């Protein structure tokens, strides 16, 4: 299944993935979705989207364009005003900008609580949590409390906790926005590895163009007020890209130009 055509697509994508190579099923389907709060202005307008299983999608836009709202609606934390969202595998796991670990629990217990709420029997939880923490290279920190961890480590524990939910779809709301650049680069690598290893469908919300160009297989650009999807790029997955690489820079430049054009339209 391919995504429905949009009239608002302005320019052609840089690299178009051959549809024959990616025949995946839709993990998330969004149909003519609209959202407004009370009688306020439209926040999201006529969003139509189909995300393939296993795809890494970046949702990019300026602050206040409604990308987090869209993510919350997919997560089921907010209700759409019109239209419908279908997550094929049921519910989705969510990770936020704030790691939001429970401060009274150790890193290991924070992961275990997700296993517990999933119904994993008590005996299996300890080992499973340790395995998940090892996946983000934090097995040694299992007995540390959140305040003893750095911001990047906390975010990795949060990632392990999201993975503990064992849901096919992982929604991420600017998870690395509050981290320093060195840590962020490492976490990009970490996340990409986890994605390749676990085959999750990831929807990654960000306002960082380079980050989107570094991570995404598919990048969706959103306009503001109301939030619409105005363009998208598909990148053939030829293995890991570095954020410093020329192809990321080239793609980033192109996306930035369009993003600025969108922002300019809000002037005066």
């Amino acid at each position, binding site marked *: 299944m391919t995504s429905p055509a949009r009239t608002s697509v302005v320019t052609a994508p840089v690299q178009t993935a051959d549809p024959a190579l990616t025949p995946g099923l839709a993990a998330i389907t969004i149909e003519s979705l609209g959202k407004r709060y009370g009688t306020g202005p439209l926040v999201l307008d006529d969003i139509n989207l189909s995300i393939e299983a*296993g795809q890494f999608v970046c949702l990019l836009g300026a602050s206040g364009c409604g990308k987090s709202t869209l993510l919350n609606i997919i*997560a089921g*934390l907010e209700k759409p005003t019109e239209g419908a969202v279908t997550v094929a595998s049921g*519910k989705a*796991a*969510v990770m*936020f900008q*704030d790691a*939001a670990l*429970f*401060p*009274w629990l150790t890193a290991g217990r924070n992961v275990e*609580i*997700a*296993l*517990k*709420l*999933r*119904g*994993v*029997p008590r005996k*299996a*939880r300890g*080992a*499973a949590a340790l*395995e*998940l923490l090892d*996946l983000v*290279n*934090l097995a040694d*920190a299992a007995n540390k*409390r*959140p*305040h*003893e*961890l*750095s*911001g*990047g*480590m906390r975010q990795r524990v949060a990632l392990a*906790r999201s*993975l503990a*939910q*064992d849901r*096919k779809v992982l929604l991420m709301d600017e998870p690395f926005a509050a981290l320093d650049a*060195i*840590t962020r680069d*490492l976490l990009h*690598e*970490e996340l990409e*590895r986890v994605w*390749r*290893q*676990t*085959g*999750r469908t990831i929807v990654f919300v960000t306002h960082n163009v380079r980050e989107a160009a570094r991570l995404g297989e598919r990048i969706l650009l959103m306009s503001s007020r109301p939030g619409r999807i105005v363009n998208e790029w598909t990148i053939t997955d030829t*293995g890991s890209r570095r954020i410093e690489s020329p192809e990321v820079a080239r793609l980033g430049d192109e996306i930035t130009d369009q993003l600025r054009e969108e922002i300019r339209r809000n002037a005066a």
Partner: protein
Amino acid sequence: MPLDARIDTTRAAPHTPDPGHDEFRRLEAGLDSLQAVPETPRGAFRRTVDGVLPPILLLIALVAAWQVYILIAKPRPDLIPGPFDVFGALASAWSSERLQLAVATSLERGGLGFLIAVAIGTPIGLLLAECRPVRRAVGPLLSGLQVLPSVAWVPAAIIWFGLTDATVYFVILMGAVPSIANGLVSGIDQIPPQLRRVGTVLGASRFEMATLVVLPAALPGYFSGLKQGWAFAWRSLMAAEIITTGGTIGFGLGTMLNQSRELADLAGVLATILVILFVGILVELVFFAPIERRLLRRRGLMAAGLR
């Protein structure tokens, strides 16, 4: 789908154990150790010395100043007794076993009254925090009750319950319950909203949300409510004991204070005040402070400079 703790690895990507990954792990571990906050715990001896020495030194200084004043100004001993008179009064109360009886009676009442107040105040606080209409209706009343001095209830309680222990407990409850309930309410109000959101995302039911997220998150606020509740309980108890004597009411510290007043025994009065103060400090130091310290330190809420 079976409940399997393993990670789903359906996407068999070109994933071979490459040396690059080991390099990456070392890089990440290096950054972790650079960024992690090192904990430098102080020894138990050092902590005790730091915590106990300053107040003891202050106490010695105050008693010394008091004695110096007595020696220099030579005031009338029935108006301003010296420290030795007060210690003497204390010693005689001890040898006649009135002191032990009074402390035991008051502590028992205070402790029992406090526990009853916890049992009543906690559900009220939960109800107020989780149920908006109830809160709008009862909230102002509860705040008002917290401000109202609970001694004001003594005359009414005497008329209702006579000179019995029920009067004392009633006054304690009127003092402590509002503090405990309000402490729990503010503890729950101060829970960062993202913690509840995580609970929702992780699929917690209403009951799981309350027991696994809300109550543990509200614990620091609830605990300071408990502490304040104890302070109000102890104060209310003393007030009630001073005012109500006779009947089946036993011999508490307040009673002892009032007896000394009737005998115009100022040294005895001061000695009893010191005992009441000392019991209050002791309960704080032995019971509340260690629990609070542990609670806050585990959550990283205690600044490094504090104990």
